[in-house]
Structure formats: C-alpha cells, structure tokens
C-alpha cells in the first residue's frame, strides 16, 4: 500500500475536508510526519518504545485445534498481547512520539468503547503528556471502568452530550476542541480515518503488524497465507496487517459489523474530514451505527479501505451480532484465547466461510486485534439473557 500523495487521496477517497482553522494543523502534521517517518532516529525510537514498553513483536500463534476442526490452516497475529490489550497502542505510541517532536505538550483523542482512549492515556502517561479524551456520554456510562482506567492514567475524560452521544459525536467534539487549541495540542485520532495525513499516518504506524506477521509466517514455515482476515471499524488493525500482504497473492478480507457496515450498506460521502463510504440516509444525514461491539460502532470506514474495496484488492463482508458471541465462545474453548468482540467478527467470518468462501486446506491469517477482557461482563449478560 503506497503513500496517498499531497492531497491524501486514495483513488477517489480520502482528502482533507476540514475547516480552514484546522488546515494549517493538518499541513503541519503532514510535514512533521513525513519528516519523522523518514528519520531513522525517529523510527528507531518508535520501534524501541514498542519493544520495551508495548511488548512487540507480538507472536503469530498457530491455532491448531481450530484448524483441525475447520479443515484449514489457521494462524493468529496476537495483537491482544500488546500493552493495553489491542493494536491501538501501536498508533498511539507513534503519534505521541510525534507530538513531542512537534513540541506540543497536550494530546486529545476520541474514544468509543475506550480502547483507544486507554491506549492514548497510557502513552501520554508514559511520555509525560497532558491528555484529554472525548467520549460519548452513553459510552462513558456503558464503559465506566474504562473511564476510570483513563483517569487512573491521568487523563481527563470529557463526556460528549451532543448528537447520538457515541463515538461519531466524540470525533466531532474532539475536532471542535482541536480548533481551539491546535497551537499546543495534537489530536491523536484512533483509526485510519479523518483528514489527511491521518488515514495514511495511522496505517503506517499500524503496518508493523503486517510486516512482523509476514516474517513470522515465514519463520513458522507457513509463508504467504491464502487469506488475511481482520475486523474493520475505522479499519486500522486491518490496514496494519494488510500492509504486510498487499503485495502478495493473499486475499485481503475485512469484516465489518452488519450494523456498522460502511462498505456493505454505505455510499460515498464526506465526514470527519474524509471522503469515504458512509452509512447515510437519502438526504446525506449520517446514520448511527449499531453493533454489539463498541469498537465497530462507526458509520464510516477509512478511505483507503473504500479504495481497496473499489479496486477489488480487498473484500469486505459483514457479520451480524448473532454470530459474534458464538465465535467468541469457539475461539475461547478451542484455543484458550478470549477475543475482543470486535475481533470475534473476523473469527465469525472464518467459522462461517471455512469450506465455502475459504476452500478447505487454505492457509488463513487472522488478525487477533484485541483481547476480550473488556467484553466479558457484556457477554455474560447476553448469554444469561439467552437462557
């Protein structure tokens, strides 16, 4: 996957649809990123923090029992083992290091379930940056423990009371805040979305997933997989692992939540600084996403994914809530890994398609984007309700 050029376009998607007040900050960020990413000292520091602090490389685990059950050869890239429990930390460490390099002292971020918020608060604590996290009021209630976690890490959590009071509105609010403090504050976006350079920058900062995995598959004697499968909210974990395999023969599969399926149900539109696929009504009003997993509860998708779907390099499928809990149970039981509900969407797709879309005997690499600890209380309630 290549750089999107000065305007940040991926085919007909991407760009930089921001108020003029933010334009200088986006331009500054773009050049700071280009400069830093080309500076071996910076990338070495980024990799050092990821190794020493965040626990990279994460392993690739052969899922032997599930493979035998499904008749495929299944591997998992274990982002659940990264510090704070998901891939989100990779991006956040890159962006906080960049924040310091730009001489800014403060970071703001949006969060849905709280994973990106916790990751951001974590990196800020580690680097001594001030941190404010915007979170929809409904999400602060649903995810009260993550709010507390962020506070323990020294972050200020601001409940967003506008609109649907969930992730989409948290992004709006973070943008509004950013306008007032671009001078000394970096907006640490949590996925491959938003205005250029974010989709590109976040993908680059997540590409370590794919690069590690490519090498690790080789070390396992498994070489190039036939399928690389990841769940897609904004699309950062998918973009990260796809990066390693875009130039291979692997089929790249993104799995959206049916209730937040921007590729499946969306159409081109402009939101949060980007042109991409969005779920919207007939008048262009953005629809609220709904998913059992807060991390996929977003009505859009990163612009590069819209482009990959457009040109057919990646395929996107949707999984409904009903299949998700079962997939979480199967992975837990068969392999001793309780995945995040987000990740469970990708698992569900594999379970469903093994022997169908995925021919028997195929080699499949799952991006295990996060651990399910944050979700077990919710899963317990759901399973109880089913009894």
């Amino acid at each position: 996957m290549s750089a999107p050029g000065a305007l940040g376009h991926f085919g007909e998607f991407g760009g930089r649809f921001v108020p003029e007040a933010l334009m200088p900050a986006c331009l500054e960020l773009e050049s700071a990123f280009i400069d830093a990413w080309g500076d071996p000292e910076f990338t070495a520091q980024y990799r050092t923090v990821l190794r020493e602090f965040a626990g990279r490389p994460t392993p690739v685990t052969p899922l032997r029992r599930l493979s035998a059950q499904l008749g495929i050869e299944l591997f998992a890239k274990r982002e659940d083992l990264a510090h704070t429990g998901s891939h989100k930390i990779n991006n956040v460490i890159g962006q906080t290091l960049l924040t310091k390099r730009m001489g800014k002292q403060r970071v703001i971020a949006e969060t849905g379930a709280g994973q990106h918020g916790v990751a951001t608060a974590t990196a800020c604590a580690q680097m001594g940056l001030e941190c404010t996290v915007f979170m929809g009021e409904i999400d602060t209630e649903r995810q009260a423990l993550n709010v507390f976690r962020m506070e323990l890490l020294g972050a200020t959590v601001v409940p967003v009371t506008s609109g649907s009071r969930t992730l989409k509105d948290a992004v709006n609010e973070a943008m509004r805040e950013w306008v007032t403090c671009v001078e000394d504050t970096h907006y640490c976006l949590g996925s491959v979305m938003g205005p250029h350079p974010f989709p590109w920058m976040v993908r680059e900062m997540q590409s370590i997933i794919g690069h590690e995995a490519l090498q690790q598959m080789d070390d396992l004697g498994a070489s190039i997989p036939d399928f690389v499968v990841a769940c897609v909210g904004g699309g950062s974990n998918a973009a990260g692992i796809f990066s390693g395999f875009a130039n291979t023969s692997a089929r790249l599969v993104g799995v959206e939540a049916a209730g937040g399926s921007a590729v499946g149900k969306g159409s081109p539109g402009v939101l949060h600084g980007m042109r991409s696929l969005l779920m919207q009504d007939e008048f262009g009003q953005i629809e609220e996403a709904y998913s059992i997993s807060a991390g996929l509860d977003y009505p859009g998708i990163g612009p590069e994914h819209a482009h990959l779907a457009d040109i057919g390099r990646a395929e996107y499928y949707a999984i409904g809530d009903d299949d998700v809990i079962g997939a979480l149970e199967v992975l837990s039981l068969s392999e001793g890994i309780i995945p995040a509900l987000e990740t469970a969407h990708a698992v569900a797709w594999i379970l469903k398609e093994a022997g169908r879309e995925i021919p028997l005997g195929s080699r499949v690499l799952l991006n295990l984007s996060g651990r399910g600890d944050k979700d077990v209380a919710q899963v317990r309630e759901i399973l109880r309700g089913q009894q």
Partner: protein
Amino acid sequence: MTSLEKHLRELRASGRKALVPYFVAGLTPDWITHVEAAVHAGADAVEIGIPFSDPMMDGVVIQEAALRALDAGTNLDSIASDLTALSVSVPLIAMTYFNIFHHYGVERAAGKLATSGITGAIVPDLPLEEGREWFDACARHDVATVLLVAPSTPPERVSAICEACRGFCYATARMAVTGRSTDAGEGAHVVERIRAASDIPVYIGIGITTPAQAHDACTTSDGVIVGSLLVKAILDGASASDVEQMVHQFRQAID
C-alpha cells in the same frame, strides 16, 4: 462576478455595514417568519443553515437546533419548498456541511439553491483543495462560494482562498466553533490579512453575540454575521417579533 458579490460590493460602496443573521432552516414551523422579521429589522443578507447530523464547526446551540430541525423532517427539498413562501429583498446564503451537497449531487445541489433564490453558499468543511467541483457547479448557477479565513491561516493561503472566494470572505474571529464568546477575538487581524490579499467584502463571524462586539467588528470589517445568539433565542421560544427586536439592536449598533 456573481450577483451576490456585485450586490454586496454595492452595499459596501453605499457606506452601509452589512448585518447577516443566521437561522437554522426548519427549526420551527414558522422559521420563515424569523427570516422576514430579521430583514424587517435591517438585515442585509440572511444565512440559511441547512441542518446536518454532524456539524463539526458548530457549538452546542447550533448542534441542538440542527438536530431539532432534522427531527422535524427538514431537508434540502423541504427547505426549497418553504422558501417559496418567502419574499424578501435581501440575498440568501446557504450554510451547511459538504456531505449534504455531495450526497445530493453537486451540480444538482447548486441548481437547487439557485432555483430556491439562494445566491451564495458557505461550506466550512470544504477547503480550497477539495472544492473545485463544487466551485465550478456554483459558478454555473451564479451561486457565490463564500470561503472562510481563520486566525491560523497563513498569508499565502489567504491569497489562494481569496482568489476562489465569491460574494464575501468570511473572517472567523476566533479559533473556536460557533457559540458564545466574551473576548474581542482576532477578527480585526484576520480582516487585515484578507484586505492585503483582496478587495472582496469581508464579514466577521463566529462568536459575535453582543451589539457592542458587532460594532467593534465593523470598525474593520464590512459586516458581521450573528448566529448562535439568535438560534439560542429561537430554541428558547423567541417569537418573530423578539427576533426583530434583537436584530434591530445589532442594526443600531453597527450603523
């Protein structure tokens, strides 16, 4: 030159400062009467806010108004049909986010504005670099593309913006979204930069909530935009005559 710009240049030439109130279309069933009241009280042009679900540049007041209008079923077509009942002598300028026009189709949207009697459009999340298609469509329909300049905009960019800007140039007084502000803002400074690049009329907006602020703004600018204050009053139940009175106070302050 677009009709709007011609009109506003003439207005400036007449020595009168422009007062541009902002209303959220569809906020109340009788929103058209608010527009009429404002014109009656001396508005020189009116901004018609087309509600969007995710108004990134707006503060809480306009957000709430937008959602209320949307809940009432407001959309581009309903607004156009409401506007057929409006007969005022001043220009109307649409203000919304790009997705509304993008989704409607830019050519079709520009045409719709024009046939609805709207002669200008402000799209705060559509920057210069992404606007070409929209600017061209608007040009074809004599809709002026009003662009914004922020306190953070560097001089080179100000020139480029002014070149693409039609009607008037929107000087944002502060690094903030719409809503109440108490400080003086940086409007004068922004106006100065725009003047250095262009002789297009320049109006100051964002956070003008008192007649005194409007007065101060007009010492450098050619006019002011007053939004959240009026929208808040309407959200709180203001009648057309309340609106008339508020606009009147601003009129007096800047004359």
